[in-house]
């Protein structure tokens, strides 16, 4: 592996973004964005293989020695997250020219690609860096570009949703900044590994407690943890279809990674769960998210919005894995991050196809669509089964580990509740299947346009991968397990 690949992981997408602005032609800008994202995808795979083979990578940016300069630090956990973020970005981008045609004026396409690349840069930067302040900077890069991506939706509500997200996201980002500042007061360093060593010496005092509270609250807003999720359904519903498919699979996942990195990698299990009892907060919120958000999803009339609420519920499963704080539970949380990214971006791509061919994603407009768009709706069924967690799909693997983890802690009611909440997913997925397959298409409904291959193939690729990783779990769950063991083994 070339020693500079970790830096190129963020530099290439960052520099490609202004190139898109200069080129302006939608096709050229798309080609540049494709080249950058696919390069980043290949690069992240090389890095992951290297990390798995030879252990963590530490890269001193600009050649400044590590605790003083900024460090890029990659271990099995963030190498996996890098692969997810770049992989989803690259695959979703394939069909975007076709999907954007309908939603964004052609002269603004290059801006979508620019913001898309910047958002990916921010997410990759948050993931790859080993410096606490860098996390804040990259968080804001990704947030600002995701607000502008969301505001490009075709209805005027896209702008109000983006504004709502901007207000909440800024409060969340500022909370994180505040938490990092308090940590710096206690430890005198910004390097995450350094911080964790010095925190282990100082132990819990009030400043550490307050910094943990701010960081958890701040990342929870970005992660859309249950009571802080109100920005998410609107943002996902009114954003352009491609943007939703991209953000749903990446933004919340990176926020989850940041939370896991701080809780396990910086504070450590002993401090966060032993002395500060973080699990007493996260576990009830996770269970509430699983039930309340799934129930709200059942009553949605727009399928895109239904999937958005389902995302809030799925965040609950990831959070459950984190709050269990044992190897099986944490493996479940991390592998669910991976699996849910595949399933949700696949499902939102299916929604992009439906929007193109029917003109809306409302449940009423999808009546009888099973016969008109057989491949599209079959993809939806496949993704729906994954959301429920049917054996043989990726969703089953993550729930299996979560239940194992809950039983290991002796929390059998939590295991039962996890199973019960899956039944709610059966209900909301079934509503779509019932409408699409068992209802007649109304006679006055316009004939749906054929599904474009450039969107259908990526959707099938993602959902097919989710089945692949449901059957052959050694790669996804294996890496997740290694990451969980590393996190529980006391930081990096």
């Amino acid at each position: 592996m070339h020693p500079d690949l970790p830096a190129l992981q963020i530099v290439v997408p960052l520099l490609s973004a202004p190139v898109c602005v200069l080129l302006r032609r939608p096709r050229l800008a798309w080609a540049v964005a494709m080249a950058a994202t696919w390069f980043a995808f290949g690069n992240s795979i090389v890095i992951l293989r290297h990390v798995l083979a030879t252990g963590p990578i530490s890269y001193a940016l600009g050649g400044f020695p590590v605790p003083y300069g900024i460090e890029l630090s990659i271990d099995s956990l963030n190498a996996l997250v890098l692969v997810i973020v770049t992989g989803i970005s690259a695959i979703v981008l394939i069909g975007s020219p076709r999907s954007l045609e309908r939603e964004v004026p052609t002269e603004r396409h290059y801006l979508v690609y620019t913001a898309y690349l910047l958002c990916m840069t921010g997410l990759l930067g948050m993931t790859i860096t080993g410096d606490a302040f860098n996390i804040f900077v990259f968080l804001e890069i990704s947030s600002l570009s995701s607000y502008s991506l969301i505001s490009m939706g075709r209805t005027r509500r896209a702008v109000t949703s983006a504004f709502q997200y901007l207000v909440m996201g800024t409060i969340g980002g500022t909370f994180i900044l505040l938490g990092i500042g308090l940590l710096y007061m206690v430890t005198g360093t910004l390097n995450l590994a350094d911080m964790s060593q010095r925190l282990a010496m100082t132990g819990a005092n009030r400043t550490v407690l307050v910094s943990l509270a701010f960081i958890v609250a701040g990342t929870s807003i970005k992660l859309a943890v249950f009571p802080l999720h109100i920005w998410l359904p609107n943002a996902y519903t009114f954003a352009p279809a491609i943007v939703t498919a991209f953000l749903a699979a990446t933004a919340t996942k990176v926020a989850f990674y940041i939370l896991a990195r701080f809780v396990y990698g910086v504070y450590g299990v002993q401090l966060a769960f032993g002395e500060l009892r973080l699990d007493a907060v996260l576990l009830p919120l996770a269970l509430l998210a699983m039930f309340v958000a799934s129930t709200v999803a059942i009553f949605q009339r727009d399928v895109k919005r239904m999937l958005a609420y389902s995302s809030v519920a799925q965040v609950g499963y990831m959070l459950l894995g984190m709050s269990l704080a044992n190897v099986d539970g944490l493996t479940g949380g991390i592998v669910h991050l991976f699996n849910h990214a595949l399933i949700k971006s696949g499902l939102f791509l299916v929604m992009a196809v439906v929007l193109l061919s029917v003109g809306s994603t409302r449940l009423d407009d999808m009546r009888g669509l099973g016969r008109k768009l057989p491949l599209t709706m079959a993809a939806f069924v496949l993704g729906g089964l994954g959301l429920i967690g049917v054996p043989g799909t990726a969703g089953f693997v993550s729930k299996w580990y979560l239940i194992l983890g809950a039983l290991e802690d002796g929390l059998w009611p939590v295991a039962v509740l996890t199973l019960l909440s899956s039944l709610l997913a059966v209900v909301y997925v079934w509503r779509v299947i019932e409408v699409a397959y068992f209802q007649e298409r109304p006679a006055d409904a316009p004939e749906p346009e054929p599904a474009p291959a450039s969107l259908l193939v990526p959707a099938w690729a993602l959902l097919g991968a989710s089945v692949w990783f449901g059957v052959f779990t050694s790669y996804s769950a294996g890496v997740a397990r290694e990451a969980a063991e590393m996190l529980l083994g006391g930081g990096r």
Partner: protein
Amino acid sequence: MLGGPGLWNYWIVIILMMTGLYVVIAKGNLVKKMIGLNVFQVSVIMLYVCMGKVDGGTAPILADGFEVYSNPVPHVLMLTAIVVGVATTALGLSFVVRIHEAYGTIEEDEIQDLEGEV
């Protein structure tokens, strides 16, 4: 603590922060919300600047006769945070302009009424 501010500067940070957060939550006017958000962000900038100050310390420039220096790192970090704040404000205000074009109002309750009709 010879005439030093004691913990007063931190109290000011907290007052500013709560004022900003209150304005964001309580005010329906979107421009006022942006102002509240700005006050909120500025309070964190003040916190960082406070923590970098060393009592009796001078600017961190090497010179004869000065031994105590303030910590420059938090101050430098805040340059970045100020840039982030400016970018957020610019983007937020541009959204407000677009909302005004689309809805004809920037009052949150009136926007919600209009959305309810659609």
